[in-house]
């Protein structure tokens, strides 16, 4: 029987295999950031251990960095200490760091591919659940905890149970690909399979709906695999993937011979069997808006807030969970999504802060200003994205519309830095999680695509972007 792409990558990275239980898997790339690494480096020091492969390890600071003027000091002392700790750890253990002043600084999952560090067929880990993003290039990319960060730093390996393989086929063609985006595809998937639908699996996204997408859109899809509970999500690499990585700053010198090898080997065999399957047809899908406190609580922009009974379909736990979500979100069942007024707009995060996201969002603006009741910000995913966007004049489009134009970082996606919602504020956000308090204690998050977020900023409430001219 044939093998899936995931199985091939898994098997080619087994260092030790046991009859029962986990396998020891080799890790090709380890990305490190300031929040989940300090305790791991402490562990190394305590046990007098070294970093085994500093040449396979790259660090940056993203979660906790301010996004305002980089020449100003960091006011929050605990944040400053965490950032200095990463600097010291990288220096002591010989790890390459893209610090707050580096032109390569940015969200770890944005800079990996942009620098050519992410490669097809590799295993990639990072102490961050959205590591699944790198799967867009046909890498097996896993989010890990701090103990595992320490384990990889020391041994360049991890003990892993083999996840099950999950095929998600995305069939059909979107009628208006500027209005219905990769974000809407992945939110539709999560809405259907649920936030635990992928637990214990690695998703392989397949079908025309996926191959039609650009690399940046594919990253949006793989990024949110973890919101369906999956360990990772990946896509068979094709010419688009190979082209994206060609000629980047850290693309390997023997790249073309690697590409020849990948073309031959990095495929799911036609007779391979997946352990789980789901198919989504995207011919008629609408822009999506989340209404609750997990990404599965999502509906079409044309719909109204569902009642807990409608949402739960008879499951008492889901019903209770929807009731709690509606109370937290201060929403009434039956309210049309387009009637929901917003206070804030956040265009950013490892899900949707790449150049293409910013270009698409800027098309909505067309010399309009954001609604007077709305505060809006754009936080590019990396300093490179910021620079490229500025070369295209996007910064001026956003600034003229009264958006704030910031430096790169995770920012209001998780609100570790000063970019947070105030209690009760309602935000249209291009990020990945609408959990209670995620963007600020008492803040209310609606997950949407960049074009939906930009349109909501202009109108002050959600609108169906299919009705706008986005050419």
């Amino acid at each position, binding site marked *: 029987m044939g093998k899936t792409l995931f199985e091939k990558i898994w098997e080619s990275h087994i260092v*030790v295999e046991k009859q*029962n239980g986990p396998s020891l898997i080799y890790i*090709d790339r380890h990305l490190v950031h300031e929040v989940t690494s300090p305790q791991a480096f402490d562990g190394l020091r305590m046990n007098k251990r070294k970093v085994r492969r500093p040449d396979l390890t790259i660090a940056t600071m993203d*979660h906790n960095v301010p996004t305002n003027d980089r020449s100003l000091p960091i006011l929050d002392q605990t944040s400053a200490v965490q950032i200095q700790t990463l600097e010291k750890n990288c220096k002591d253990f010989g790890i390459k760091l893209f610090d707050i002043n580096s032109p390569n600084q940015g969200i770890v999952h944005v800079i990996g591919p942009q620098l050519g560090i992410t490669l097809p067929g590799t295993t990639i880990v990072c102490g961050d659940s959205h590591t699944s993003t790198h799967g867009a290039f046909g890498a097996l990319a896993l989010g*890990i905890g701090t103990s595992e960060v320490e384990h990889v730093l*020391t*041994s360049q390996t991890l003990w892993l149970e083999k996840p099950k393989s999950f095929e998600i086929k995305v069939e059909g063609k979107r009628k208006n690909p500027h209005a219905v985006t990769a974000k809407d595809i992945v939110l539709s998937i999560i809405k259907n399979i649920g936030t635990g639908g992928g637990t214990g699996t690695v998703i392989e996204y397949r079908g025309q709906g996926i191959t039609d997408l650009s690399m940046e859109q594919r990253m949006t899809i793989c990024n949110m695999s973890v919101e369906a509970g999956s360990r990772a999500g990946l896509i068979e690499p094709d010419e688009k993937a190979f082209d994206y990585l060609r000629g980047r700053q850290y693309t390997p010198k023997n790249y073309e011979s690697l590409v020849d090898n990948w073309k031959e080997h990095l495929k799911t065999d036609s007779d391979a069997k997946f352990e789980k399957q789901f198919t989504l047809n995207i011919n008629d899908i609408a822009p999506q808006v989340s209404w609750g406190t997990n990404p599965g609580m999502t509906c079409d922009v044309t719909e109204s807030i569902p009642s807990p009974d409608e949402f739960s379909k008879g499951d008492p736990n889901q019903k*209770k969970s929807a009731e709690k979500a509606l109370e937290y979100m201060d929403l009434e069942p039956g309210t049309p999504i387009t009637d929901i007024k917003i206070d804030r707009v956040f265009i950013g995060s490892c899900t949707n802060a790449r150049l293409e996201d910013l270009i698409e969002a800027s098309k909505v603006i067309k010399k309009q200003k954001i609604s007077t009741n709305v505060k809006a910000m754009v936080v590019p995913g990396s300093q490179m994205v910021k620079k490229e966007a500025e070369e295209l004049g996007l910064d001026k489009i956003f600034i003229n519309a009264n958006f704030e134009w910031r430096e790169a970082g995770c920012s209001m996606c*998780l609100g570790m830095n000063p970019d947070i919602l105030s209690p009760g504020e309602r935000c249209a956000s291009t990020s990945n999680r609408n959990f209670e308090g995620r963007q600020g204690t*008492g803040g209310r998050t609606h997950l949407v695509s960049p074009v939906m977020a930009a349109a909501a900023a202009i109108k002050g409430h959600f609108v169906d972007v299919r009705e706008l001219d986005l050419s």
Partner: protein
Amino acid sequence: MEPFKKVKSIITPLDQVNVDTDQIVPKQFLKLVHKSGFGKFLFYNWRYDENEKIKPDFVLNDSKYNNSKILVTGDNFGCGSSREHAIWALLDYGFSVIIAPSFADIFFSNCFKNGFLPISLDQKIVEKLQQEVDIIEVDLETQIIKTSSEEISFKIDPYKKKILLEGLDDIAQTLQFENKISEFERKSKVPSVL
């Protein structure tokens, strides 16, 4: 890591599904660079209101659960962020066992690195356990939970059981395979980053 011992305690029922790690430890507490003292941040936004006053109707604020070591909760516990701070907070608060119908993958694997036992049981059994008011006993050695009225057996991967019972250092175990790792590296064609 301390070896895992038999646990005897009343349970704390947290009757919710999809409890994410942002709720277990909110992000404002992730700036710390050490592992200790996270218990006071556990379920912070559910335990305290905006003015940092105790919310009396949240289960952890009910004093009868003060010495409970066993949290019994709903499906997909620990979803979301990979933050291991979630486990450090549960442990530091006093919990050492968590029982739910299912757990998110990263959270589940983080548990075993910290001597914390997650037990996955059928939904019906979990719902019944949530009603239990007497002391129960969780014995990892025999894989049995004893309540006042019954004995419930649970499954666990033998390697993970050994790690917990013996309090093994995962990394020290791995470094015994140094030869295999070096051999893999000699054959591997993956280029260095720099």
